[in-house]
Every structure is written in structure tokens, then in C-alpha cells.
């Protein structure tokens, strides 16, 4: 059996000390981890997107006051003090980043993927978004304007992707399954659904 890494030992030491001091218990930590790995995730954002596609009033409200909507849905996993939803159109493509650390709309997307936190994405998506998106598999036409939204402690962003073709007959629940996390970060577009 390999020896635990120095970080694993420090983390274990920290948890043990904080437990001794009565500041937390391992069961509480377990509970937080379970919440973020099972109950908080992109399925929440997908519910908002699918509803926005079928309900014009809801869509309007989502684009003007997403914070209120998220509070009404009462998703777990805070960090959505103020959520702004930005809409992709044939002419404008939005993409989200946190240049300074790893801010991310947890309540609607869960915890961020590894690449979102890496310096390569954080620095380059601002400077050369078209190139970075292309490397990630999204080639946008030259006449599509790209808007990069830098998350902060105060404001988190989520992208409302365009509804793909071939989904006219799908129910709202079926539409939720079409939405991907990456499309709500803005590093992907949704593929048309085959009829």
C-alpha cells in the first residue's frame, strides 16, 4: 500500500484537529460532500434552461432576474447570491470564466470541472476566446460576437444555450436531458437532435 501524500496527511491532520476543537465533525463533512456530489449539479441548470425554452414568460424572467428564480426553486448549494443568465443567439455567444479563482454558480451547475480552475482556461479565454473555444471543439463563425463573463464573489453567470433543432416534439423533461453542463458554461453548443 502506498503512503498517503503530504496533502492527504495535512488534510487528515486538519480534520482531526478541527474535530478535537469541536469546530466540526466528520459526519458534517460527509454530509456536505454528499450534498455537493449528489444533490447539486448541472441538472438544476438544465431544468431552468428547458423551462425557458418552452415558456416565454419564464425565459424573460430568467434573463432579467435569475436570482429570484433560483431562490424560488430552492436548489441546495448556495453561492448564488446573485445569478445572471446570459442568452446565446445566432449572433452572440456567451462564455463564463472566473479569472481570479474558481467562482461558479454552484446552485445551478454544481462544482466546477478541473479545466475551469486551471490557469490556461482562466487567462486565455479572456485574451483569445475564439481560439480557446475552437480547441475545446467549438468553432464559431467569424461574425459571431463572443462575450466573456468574469464571475466574482458578487455575481455568478450561467449561459442560456440555444435550443437545438429537432427538439420541437420533446417534452420539457426530455429537453432537460438534452442540456449539457458545458453548454451552460458556454464552451459548447448543443447538437441538433436527430429526428
Amino acid at each position, binding site marked *: 500500500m502506498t503512503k498517503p501524500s503530504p496533502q492527504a496527511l*495535512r488534510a487528515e491532520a486538519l480534520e482531526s484537529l478541527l474535530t478535537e476543537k469541536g469546530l466540526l465533525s466528520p459526519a458534517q463533512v460527509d454530509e456536505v460532500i454528499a450534498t455537493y456530489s449528489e444533490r447539486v449539479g448541472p441538472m438544476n441548470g438544465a431544468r431552468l434552461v428547458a423551462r425557458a425554452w418552452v415558456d416565454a414568460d419564464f425565459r424573460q424572467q430568467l434573463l432579467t432576474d435569475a436570482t429570484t428564480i433560483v431562490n424560488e426553486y430552492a436548489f441546495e448549494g448556495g453561492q448564488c447570491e446573485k445569478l445572471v443568465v446570459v442568452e446565446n443567439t445566432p449572433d452572440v455567444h456567451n462564455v463564463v470564466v472566473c479569472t481570479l479563482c474558481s467562482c461558479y454558480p454552484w446552485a445551478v451547475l454544481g462544482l466546477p470541472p478541473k479545466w475551469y480552475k486551471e490557469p490556461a482556461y482562466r487567462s486565455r479565454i479572456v485574451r483569445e476566446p475564439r481560439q480557446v473555444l475552437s480547441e475545446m471543439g467549438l468553432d464559431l463563425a467569424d461574425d459571431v460576437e463572443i462575450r466573456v463573463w468574469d464571475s466574482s464573489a458578487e455575481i455568478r453567470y450561467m449561459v442560456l444555450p440555444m435550443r437545438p433543432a429537432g427538439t420541437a416534439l420533446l417534452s420539457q423533461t426530455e429537453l432537460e436531458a438534452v442540456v449539457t453542463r458545458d453548454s451552460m458554461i458556454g464552451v459548447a453548443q448543443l447538437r441538433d437532435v436527430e429526428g
Partner: protein
Amino acid sequence: MTDDTTDHMSLEGTIAPPMANGEIIFEAPWQSRVFGMARCLCEQGQFSWDDFRARLIEVIGAADAASGPGDEYHYFDHFLAALTAILEEKQLCNPAEVSRKAMELSNRPHGHDH
């Protein structure tokens, strides 16, 4: 068309293509533990998430400045450093204490390290 763009791409390292929903967020159990501890302490009001975020930005900023092209990035090392820093600042836990405890744990007989 020339090929002179290829090199400048590799300067900043490549980006792993994102995977589908449900990708693993924590690469090792200790990473989920430090995340869980930070959230717990925050929920209990020991510090605000903004306070923690400020430490995280400092640690990440320093690491970004010190890192070279092609260096591997270890986000949760920075997360752990930020948590240690704020616990010291709030006088909740001293880093020297953590080091001592970690040393103690590393000297456990084999088989005790889950």
C-alpha cells in the same frame, strides 16, 4: 498560411477537453474532505465565503505568477493552503499544530492509513 501559431499555443499548456456531465470533481478523497471542511466552517459562521475566497485568490495569484509553461496545476493544494491561512488568521488552528499532527499520522504503523 503559415504554421507559426503552433508554438505559441503550447506556451500556456493545453486544455483538456471538457467531459460530459457527471465528471469526477475530486481526484482524491482528501480533496473532497478539505472542500467539505471549508463549507462546514463557513456554514457555521467561522468565516464568510468571501473571506475564504480572498485567501484563495491570494494563494492562486502567487502560484500563477510562479508557475512556468507546462507546469501541472494543483488546484486543491491551493485550496488547502487557503484554508490553512484563514484558520490561522481566525486563530482557529495553527499551521504548526497541523504539521505536528500530520507528522504523527505519517508515523502510524502501516495499514492505518485508510
